[in-house]
């Protein structure tokens, strides 16, 4: 089982791709673990969602989740 990770806006451009598929390991339990597993230290003002709902770095992740990372939102 895997976690789908999506990136948006400037973050997508900085990373150079719009998604990753991550095979779960025992070390990845939270959103923050997932970011560190893929990219190292999380940047300031990083926002995240799990299954299309806002999440924090300490929000748990599970097999099959859709996780997204993005910069602060600027709509309206």
């Amino acid at each position: 089982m895997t976690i789908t990770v999506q990136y948006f806006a400037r973050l997508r451009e900085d990373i150079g791709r719009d998604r990753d598929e991550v095979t779960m390991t025992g070390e990845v339990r939270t959103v923050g673990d997932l970011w560190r597993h893929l990219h190292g230290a999380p940047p300031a003002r990083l926002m995240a969602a799990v299954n299309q709902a806002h999440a924090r770095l300490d929000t748990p992740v599970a097999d099959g989740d859709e996780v997204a990372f993005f910069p602060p939102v600027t709509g309206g």
Partner: protein
Amino acid sequence: MAVRLFDQPFDPWTLVRERERGLPLEGLGACTVFAGRMRDFNEDQDVRALFLEHYPGMTERELERIVAEAEARWPAITCEVAHRVGAVEPSETLVLVAVWSAHRVDARDACSEILERLKHEAPFWKRERLADGSERWVEKNTPGH
């Protein structure tokens, strides 16, 4: 509740008029409308065009959640929310928040609350094209209120 995304220009006043046709206006003494347009300037630079990126699925869910929470806080309000996505040109409408209620305070407060939460929570990102052809991501919204 009505939440809509448009990938083409929309007229906020038409949306308000169309919504009012189905409402019991005799009991709704107040309507507050916020219509936000794209400016041709931002942070002292001329802006020629905007691209509004969003997160299909989550953006709609977030808007619906924000409106639902406002309706829970002000139970007697009726809301209409619309937002552009994709390529936008100056003077086109970016966002509409319209709230009807029996009295002015609920309509005004709920409209302001929905707009501010939309700006801080709904996943949209603005990318500007400047007069010299360069592009930049908008890093943060202007302070609200």
